[in-house]
Each structure stands twice: as structure tokens, then as C-alpha cells.
């Protein structure tokens, strides 16, 4: 990763026209210049030049951002704002280190043992701090899914009062028997033989799917298998590292990326698929950046990244649904037509990491439009940020959930019953917002509707 100082010329491309103000979700809520890119770049520049110290205010302003990338996308001068922010965040970590909690979490993200046991322990004592949410509070359809989430009883550090927290799954995705079966390492030599007639997909779970939403993982596997492709779920895979990366902990992000690349290299695959927008963005675009200065690792990262697909992209573009393959029954009968199936009205929220960082916008919509029983409607502000990202929901929950208000409004205006999206992070945030703003809508992953 490049040093913060080397971004001076990038910052100087900003001509202060203020166009970034038009799209920035934090500026909309805070109504302060320090929230938008024009302000942040000014502060970062002053800090680099030694005009400003690493004050509390500076630190706060650098962190007060959901890293949605909206400013980068609208900037007429083409300033790569998010790259500058990331470098500034990495610099914060370099100088000040991580907070105790961040350290605890990030340093253990690659442990396939410790993280799960901590989470399990947490799950056991959750009653002390949280109460179970009713399905209405949770904005989730019991028909689609049973876990409703938890509402915090008190204002907790990193959590905040009245916040709907997702429940930790009873059994983690990667521990499920049927998933572990898919982790069997193929004999390496066989990867080029004729038995590889069908397309091979290696599935990357990610923490959201693994710990919180295993059903999204299993639904994804079903969708892939339905096309006739062969799926593996490589054993030993760890967190994608993006939470650490966005906090500025590049070292952890590198470590995790390396580990994941190594694990996947053990398997033969045509595609690496994941159902988390943040993971697919990380695997596809960030890994390469992490190894900018390491030729050998960069090549390996590039080879890996070239195969990465978001699940919506994979299903809509790369894999053709094979509805008639025997034994893998298609979900809906060909007869009867659309009218015969009960229609639920569904709208779609664009995760920033999918839409802005990967340009994937049409694919999930196409899947929903084609899905049996789904009446798809676009919603207003579909691509405005949910507010969770960039660590904002941890560092400034009040701001983060205030940003989501716009989504709740958009959901109401859409008239849809269900909001579909393609990122467990967004799902967590949107459910919380629906509960908080009293909107009776279910929030699900696209794959759950296919």
C-alpha cells in the first residue's frame, strides 16, 4: 500500500467545486462541510503538510464516512477519494494503533477456532444484554427465515441502545455437515482431467454468511448447483479482511488475503463465488492492491481475483440455469405460468460495494425479474448507501443508522413487501433500520428468492 504523502497530487486534483456534497450520505445527515470529500481532502492535505495535527477532530472526520464511494463516482475532476481516505485511515492506525476491541477482533479473524468460540460464548450470554425481537420488529418474514435478531436492552459500547443486532447462528455455515462435505480437497492432479466437464465453482462464505446467515450460504449453493455446476467450499478459508482494511489495519488485511489465496489454490475452480458484496469487492479488487509491492504475491492475487464473481453476477452472466437437469429439480414448474404462483412484491437495494465498486447493478435486478413469484419494482434511492460500511456502524452508530433513514423512506415509497439485496452487511443494517423506523418490510438476500 502506498504512503499517505504520495496522495498529495491526487488531493490536489480537487478543484473544490463541491459536487461531492450532492451525493454524500454523511453530509446529508451531518450538514457539515467536514463530512464531504471536499472538506475531508482539505483536512488530509493540511495534515500531510503538517499544518494540522492528528487531533481528535481530524481522526473523527477521517472516520466519519461509510466509504460508499459516491463522491469518487461523481467527482468531475476524477479524484480517487476513497483511496485517499484509506491511506489516511491506514496512517491513523500506523500512528495510533488500533483500539483494544479492534485489535481483539482483527487479530483473531484468521483463527478458524477462536472467532467461532468467542461468538458462541457471546451467543450464550446474549440474553443479559439483548432481548429477542418479534418478527415485526426484525423486519423479517418468518416464512422465509426464522431468525429474527436481538434488540439491545441498554446502550452498549459499539452497539448503542435499541439496536437490532443479528443473532449469531446456532450452527455456522462452514460447520454444516453438507458444507463440510464440499470442503474435501480434490486430488490436485485430477483438476485437468476430463471429469471436469462441468463448471467448477469454489464458494467463499465470508463472516456474514458463516456466522450470521448460513441460510444465505446454503441458498447460494443451491442456486449454483441448480445450474449443473460443481461446488466446493474450500476448507480453512477465513475472513476476507475488508473490515480490517477499511479500518486501516492493512497488515491484518494482507495476512488474511494471503491465507485465503493459499487455501483456494489447493482447489481447482473456474470461478470463486461469494454472496457478500463486500467480500466479492475485496477478493476481486482489493487483494491485488494489497500486494502492490510484492511481485510474486501480486501475480497470485491477480490470478485468484480474475476468477472472483459475486453470486448475482455468476448466476446472471456466467452460469446458465439448467432447469431440466434430472435430480436437481427446478424450483417452479414450467406449466401454470407466472400468474399461478403467488406474487410477492420485491424491491432491490444496491450495496455500494457491488454497484459502485464493481459496477454490478443490472444482474441482481435481472435475476429478480426472472424469478418465479416475484413482482419486481425499483425503489427510489436504490443506490444510496445503507450507512453500515467503512466501519461507521461501529465508530458512529447514530450517524450510521441516521443515514439508513433514507432507505426506510425509499422502501415505504416503493410499496414493495420485501427488500432484497446482495450483502449480509446491508441486510443487517436495513433490518435494524426497518425496526427503528417502524417499517414493516422484510429484508432478504436475492438468492433466497430464486
Amino acid at each position, binding site marked *: 500500500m502506498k504512503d499517505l504523502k504520495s496522495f498529495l497530487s491526487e488531493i490536489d*486534483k480537487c*478543484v*473544490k*467545486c*463541491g*459536487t461531492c*456534497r*450532492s451525493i454524500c450520505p454523511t453530509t446529508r445527515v451531518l*450538514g*457539515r*462541510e*467536514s463530512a464531504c470529500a*471536499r*472538506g475531508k481532502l*482539505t*483536512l488530509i492535505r*493540511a495534515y500531510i503538510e503538517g*499544518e*494540522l495535527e492528528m*487531533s481528535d*477532530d*481530524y481522526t473523527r*472526520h477521517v472516520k466519519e464516512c461509510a466509504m460508499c464511494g459516491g463522491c469518487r463516482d461523481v*467527482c*468531475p*475532476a*476524477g479524484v480517487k477519494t476513497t483511496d485517499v481516505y484509506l491511506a489516511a485511515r491506514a496512517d491513523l492506525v500506523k500512528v495510533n494503533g488500533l483500539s483494544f476491541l479492534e485489535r481483539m477482533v482483527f487479530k483473531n479473524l484468521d483463527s478458524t477456532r477462536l472467532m467461532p468460540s468467542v461468538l458462541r460464548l457471546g451467543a450464550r450470554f446474549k440474553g443479559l444484554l439483548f432481548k429477542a425481537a418479534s418478527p415485526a420488529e426484525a423486519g423479517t418474514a418468518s416464512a422465509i427465515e426464522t431468525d429474527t435478531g436481538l434488540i439491545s436492552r441498554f446502550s452498549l459500547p459499539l452497539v448503542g441502545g435499541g439496536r437490532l443486532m443479528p443473532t449469531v447462528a446456532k450452527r455456522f455455515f462452514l460447520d454444516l455437515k453438507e458444507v463440510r462435505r464440499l470442503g474435501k480437497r480434490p486430488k490436485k492432479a485430477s483438476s485437468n482431467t476430463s471429469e471436469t466437464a462441468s463448471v467448477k465453482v469454489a464458494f467463499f462464505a465470508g463472516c456474514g454468511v458463516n456466522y450470521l446467515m448460513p441460510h444465505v450460504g446454503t441458498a447460494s449453493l443451491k442456486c449454483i448447483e441448480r445450474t449443473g455446476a460443481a461446488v466446493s467450499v474450500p476448507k480453512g478459508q477465513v475472513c476476507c479482511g475488508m473490515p480490517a482494511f477499511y479500518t486501516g489495519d492493512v497488515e491484518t488485511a494482507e495476512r488474511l488475503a494471503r491465507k485465503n489465496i493459499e487455501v483456494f489454490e489447493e482447489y481447482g475452480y473456474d470461478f470463486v463465488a461469494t454472496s457478500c458484496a463486500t467480500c466479492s469487492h475485496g477478493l476481486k479488487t482489493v487483494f491485488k492492491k494489497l500486494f502492490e509491492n510484492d511481485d510474486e504475491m501480486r501475480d497470485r492475487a491477480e490470478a485468484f481475483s480474475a476468477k472472483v464473481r459475486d453470486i448475482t453476477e455468476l448466476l446472471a452472466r456466467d452460469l446458465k440455469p439448467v432447469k431440466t437437469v434430472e435430480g436437481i429439480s427446478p424450483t417452479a414448474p414450467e406449466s401454470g405460468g407466472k400468474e399461478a404462483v403467488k406474487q410477492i412484491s420485491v424491491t432491490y437495494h444496491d450495496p455500494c460495494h457491488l454497484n459502485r465498486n464493481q459496477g454490478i447493478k443490472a444482474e441482481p435486478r435481472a435475476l429478480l425479474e426472472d424469478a418465479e413469484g416475484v413482482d419486481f419494482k425499483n425503489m427510489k434511492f436504490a443506490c444510496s448507501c445503507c450507512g453500515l460500511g467503512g466501519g461507521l456502524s461501529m465508530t458512529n452508530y447514530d450517524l450510521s443508522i441516521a443515514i439508513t433513514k433514507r432507505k426506510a423512506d425509499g422502501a415505504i415509497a416503493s410499496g414493495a413487501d420485501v427488500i432484497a439485496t446482495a450483502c449480509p452487511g446491508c441486510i443487517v443494517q436495513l433490518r435494524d433500520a426497518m425496526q427503528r423506523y417502524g417499517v414493516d418490510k422484510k429484508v432478504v438476500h436475492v438468492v433466497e428468492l430464486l
Partner: protein
Amino acid sequence: MLSDKNYISLEEIVGKEQVSASKEDLLCYSYDATNTTYLPDAVIFPANALEVSRIVELANLRGFSIIARGAGSGFTGGSLAVSGGVVLSTERMKRVIKIDEENLTATVEPGVITWEFQQDVEALGLFYPPDPTSKKISTIGGNIAECAGGPRAVKYGVTRDYVLGLEVVLPTGEIIKTGTSTMKGVVGYDLTRLMVGSEGTLGIVTGATLRLIPKPESVVTMLAFFPGISEAAAAVADIVAARIMPSTLELIDSFSIKCIEEYDPVRFAGVGALLIVEVDGRPESVKIEAELVNGVCKAAGATNIETATDKRAVKNLWKARRSISPALFKLKPNKINEDVVVPRSKIIELMTGLESIGKERGLIIACFGHAGDGNIHMNIMYDRNDDAEAARASEAVKEAFELTLSLGGTISGEHGVGTTKAEYLEMEIGSVEVALMRRLKECFDPKGIMNPGKIFSNKSAVRVT
């Protein structure tokens, strides 16, 4: 410098959270779209007219200056604290108070963002036409203070044509109401018109009653390609002379096209000049007008005329158009950006004149803008670090202004004078008129605390008695 005593008094008015003198906040309110920097002594975020009134009253009493600021998208340095003082941001005053569907008026606070307000009224089938290209960020208060115009001004006029009445805090602290909420009104002097375009030097707008009209039923957007700027300029003059009333008539020259080529690499590459033409109204009449425009453009030498068929294409086109101004920096690191206006029959002379000024001095002068009302944004591109080039650029500005005035034009159509044009004011305005304007300023603002250093060239405007 602002004394501790004054700072504490300000805190007492708005609360500790809503005033700041931290280095971070000062830096963030030190610039506008001119990309120049002046650190204020403090920034304050009042919630309503009463607070504004108390702040200004204090400033007048204690003798520190107040600079109103909307979104800081101004192009003439209007919101900059050029001699220190307190920047008063209207970012918290952003309520649309009322949209009166029976009388077609709306009442808003000054910090409302132009485009968001337009979305609100259009949802009700109404229309607020003034549309500066910066509409997605600029505020109604800033628009009023600069009398902003935009692409639609050619048919619908500028901000001043839609302001019925104002609530203003005078530099001495009183809250006054100007104008009416009726369509007409002639009682007393027209203070509303005086305030519109006064660049925050005569008072702070804390509320506005705006005129709305019914939203046009349909719009057709056309894009005409020309081999060169003179053909395009001729087409503009011909459209006006043919008594066609387009709702938009935007000109883009080849330098500007180059900067936005990425929006449509296939069609924009190597084009000499573009016109964006829109006609709006009832579908039947729109169709006829579109055909007329087509004919005139062809006759003037257009090589191709496209009619946009879907909304996405139109949106993309306007996005490209809005990006020109900031994207010009791809040509040179700095620009002198002026928005001269000439009678529409003289646009060709202006364009060719500017072209030769550029050639003679070895400078790129990129031109685009609301040609339909004779308003051209000319951008003299240069490098601040190249002294010789910078000197040539400033000579070119003066020459361009002389050309504009000789054609019967004005040196600013909508961006205002601010600091950047203050030294040229007297090129256009006679000494008697300037003296009258200064007396007006003194009469409103005897202590010179309200946005000093703007419009009138520096020292003399700030006369502290």
C-alpha cells in the same frame, strides 16, 4: 481575530455545538469553488432567523464581520472570509416550509438545496425553473444572493424572476420582510429586487417566498453536432431570430468537449462544437418546435442532429454538461472563469473574438454555456506557477471584457462580482452609478460588517467609522 468574549457571546446565541473555531472547521469553511483559501475566525450554524438576527446584531455592535455561506459553490469568492470574520453557514436552515398549491408559491429557508426543492415541487406537478448547473449542491439563499441563472433561463428567466418576497436580516440586526406573497405588488421601493443579486453584502436572506409555474408536460432534448464553433454560434443566433423559444440552448466548444469525452467517447471524439437544445410544453407544440430547431441547425451547418429518446441518455448528457466546468482542469491546472453575456445576435463576434485573443496570447480559452441567452462561460486556462502565462491570462481577461462591453454586453451574467471581478467593476459601471451603489451599501451597512471586500474593490468598501 475574534476575541474570547465575542466567541462566548456567539456560543450563548446558538449553543456550544453550533459554533466552532477549531482549525479543522476553519479549514473546511475557508474555500469555495474558486479554489482559493481564506481562514475565517469562526464558523457558526444558526437554526433560524432569530438566531441570525442576534448574531448579526452582535457583530454590528462589536465590529466583527459576518460572511453568509450556502454551499460554497460560488465562482466569485462571495462566501470567502477575505479579511477574517465569522462565516455564517445556512446548512441547518433547510426546511421547505410550505408549498401553496392553490396560489403556486412556496416558502423556504435559505439553506434548501435547489434541486431538492425542485424535486419536491415537481412531485406536485409544479415547476421552479432556475437551474444553475450547480443545482444539486447550491442553495436557494446562494442562488438569490447571486441571482443565479441556468440553462433554462433562455425561456424562463433567472432567479430574480421567481422571487416574490424575502425575509432578510439587515446588517444592523433587524429582521425585515420585503415584497409580497402575491403575484403583484408595488407598495414602496422594490427591496426584493435590490436584495436579489446583492451577494450577501446588504443582508442575510433567512426566508424566501418563491413563484412556481405549472410543470411543462413534455420535453424534447436534441444534440446537434457542428464542425466548428462559428457554425454553432450562428445556429444559436438563427434560432433566436426565427422566434423559436427553446427551454435550453447550450453551447459547448471543442476544448470543453475534449474534457468530457469519456462520457460518450464514440460520439464526442473530434467534434468541433455541440449544441444542446431542449424544447418543452404541450406535446403537439413541442413536436413542431423540435422540427423547426432541426431545420435551423441543419441550415447553419450541423452535421448531425440527434433527438434523445430515453431518459437515461438525457441524464447522461446533462451529467456530462454539468461536469465541464470542473473537468476543464484536465487542460491546465488553473483557470480564470468568467461568464460574460452579449446580445444574442453578437455571439458569433464574441466567439471569434475570443478565439483570436486566445491564439494571439497562446492560451486555451475554453467556452461553453447558456448561449441561448447570450451567456458564455469563458475559461482562460493557465498554470499559476508559470508567471509569464499567468500574466498573459490576466491580460486576456481584460481584453475579453473590453470585447464583451464593446459588443453591448455585461461582464457577468450570473456568477456575480465577488472578489474576482471587483477590480473590473468600473469598466462596466459608471462612476456616478458606482458611487450610488456605495452609498446604498453604507446606508444598509454603516459599519461595513457584512461580507466586506466584495463587489467593490477592497479597502474602500470596508469603512469602519
